[in-house]
């Protein structure tokens, strides 16, 4: 049994102009200690998927279908208080902007100790000692002197380290990291990724790494799910998705990324842009932009299917009939 299982998840936003379906039939699983990358462009639904898992969807967004199970236990229908106990203790979260994840009015040590005491029986002294130890683990120099410093006294990279310490404070089994390095400079990005990966390997924590940056995924993740317009377009081991993408969207996405040392005059581009939620095309959502579109794509929606390699792709090219046509 996988640590996290998401099955047929559907998230809708009720608005005056009708229901918008942000996530439509997303299924994924994360094994114990595994890093699953979730990649996609803005509006693909990757952050909403993360928020649905930790139960932090902002109204009017709500889960309207499917199941989320953590270690076999269903968590998408839990009451607010029971979910609160799971958040932090079993599922940690790291968000993009470390400044908004920390309370500016409290010292970082107090925030860490508060989290530790909320989820364990630790005494204030023990919690503080654990907080100092955590700050040291995430690479903050002289943690015993920095423990009472306020968030604004840290640089962006150091703040993100504090947020990682917060997420790891009570050894959760899963961390949802939503664009953890996007707000950071490139040289700091590498440090944070290495730190997150190293710590999770030590603690055996699984990570759901949500990002738009294929480079970060390529370095960090074991498996990748590529999202497009609220659905998973392709999923597979990171190497196979990066090197031999199967879905036309993933292919286009990989071709549009400038890569160092690859001499190309023009980047391959996917024309158009991701559809808005109120205008998702029928059939495969990617079909208006797809270079390999067939008649079937505009009518019938493909589910993830085997592609002959380790990847699974939601594309009719890989349907038993399609294979004959497109070789």
């Amino acid at each position: 049994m996988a640590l996290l299982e998401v099955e047929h998840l559907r998230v809708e936003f009720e608005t005056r102009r009708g229901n918008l379906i942000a996530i439509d039939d997303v299924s994924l699983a994360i094994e114990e200690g595994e890093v699953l990358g979730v990649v996609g462009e803005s509006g693909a639904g990757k952050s909403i998927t993360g928020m649905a898992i930790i139960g932090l969807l902002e109204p009017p967004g709500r889960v309207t279908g499917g199941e989320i199970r953590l270690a076999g236990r269903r968590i998408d229908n839990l009451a607010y208080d029971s979910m609160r106990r799971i958040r932090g203790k079993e599922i940690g979260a790291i968000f993009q902007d470390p400044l908004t994840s920390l309370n500016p009015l409290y010292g970082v040590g107090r925030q860490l100790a508060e989290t530790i005491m909320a989820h364990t029986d630790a005494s204030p002294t023990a919690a503080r000692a654990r907080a100092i130890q955590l700050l040291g683990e995430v690479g903050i120099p002289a943690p015993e002197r920095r423990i009472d410093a306020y968030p604004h006294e840290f640089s962006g990279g150091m703040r993100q380290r504090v947020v990682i310490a917060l997420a790891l404070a009570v050894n959760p089994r899963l961390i949802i990291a939503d664009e953890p390095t996007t707000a950071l400079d490139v040289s700091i990005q590498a440090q944070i990724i290495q730190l997150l990966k190293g710590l999770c390997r030590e603690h055996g924590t699984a990570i759901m790494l949500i990002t738009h940056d294929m480079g970060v995924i390529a370095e960090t993740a074991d498996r990748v799910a590529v999202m497009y317009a609220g659905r998973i377009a392709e999923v597979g081991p990171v190497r196979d998705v990066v090197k031999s993408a199967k879905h036309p969207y993933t292919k286009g996405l990989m071709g549009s990324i400038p890569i160092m040392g690859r001499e190309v005059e023009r980047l391959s581009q996917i024309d158009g842009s991701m559809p808005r939620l109120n205008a998702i095309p029928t059939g495969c959502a990617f079909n208006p932009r797809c270079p390999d579109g067939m008649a079937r794509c505009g009518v019938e929606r493909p589910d993830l299917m085997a592609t002959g390699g380790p990847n699974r792709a939601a594309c009719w090219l890989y349907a038993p009939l399609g294979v004959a046509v497109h070789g």
Partner: protein
Amino acid sequence: MAEAGQPIVEVVGLARYFDVSKPWLARVLQGQPRLTLKAVDGIDFAIRRGETFSLVGESGCGKSTVARLIVGLHRPTRGHIRFDGVDLTALGTRAAQAPFRRRMQMIFQDPFASLNPRWRVRDIVAEPLRAFALVATGETVAGRVAELLTQVGLSANDGEKYPHEFSGGQRQRISIARALSGNPEFLVCDEPTSALDVSVQAQILNLMKDLQRRLGLTYLFISHNLAVIDHVSDRVGVMYLGRLCEVADAQSLFRRPRHPYTRLLLDTIPDLAMTGRARGPVAGEVPSPIAPPPGCAFHPRCPHAGERCRLEAPALLEHDGALIACHGVEEGRL
């Protein structure tokens, strides 16, 4: 007008300091000195006609300040900016600078902030035409706007819409159309694709390349993304804490980086080719530009720093066709 390959923009000893001290009363009461932030601290480079010159560096290194200095959004504290041989810093009045300003335009990072939400796209694109009195009648304005919008891949009818009706990539196309409307020769692009998704970024980068070829534009391109820089640039300047540490043509900079900071930056790029290359250990952070380290500003993070690096700021000197500011390279240690 200068020939191809001749410098169109020359920057000599350019510096810009910002006063970041607290207000006078607070300073007096707390006994604090004035604080100066040296955003750009004496840099020299030249951009040749028809090329793409890029500035790369981490946040706070001064690259955007250089862009703003060149287009005249900041006045330099010292130094000179020559455009097509004319020293802009010596031209006192705005009126005297105007003919040169028309020939350089800027594209900003955030297409949501750089377009006036209350203006129709046609007015946004036509503003430079009106400001520089480039066309006489309303009819020719409309024709020119339609032509510009088609040129950047939008439709001529899009002029009637407002910016909020467009996606980020389309808005950046509007910014480009506006920048092109004055028939500039030189475009300053400050992180033009950083706010965009990668597939849209590819569209914009391709568009900019096509326009450069068709209109013979010269670009100053600013970005923190080295892969993008590698893709678009002919020559690259690497900035660190307000100074240039390496200037070289793009090929040799990326194949054979010389300055330790350039090497560090290249090491931090995620490995998309999946070669299994281990990233070099990268330590430390960019120090505060208010109190930069003495000597070479990079020495606290540099694995090759010696005694001289702590004391003396290195000058930008030529080594094998590249300009490098490093004592190690100068002494032949690196």
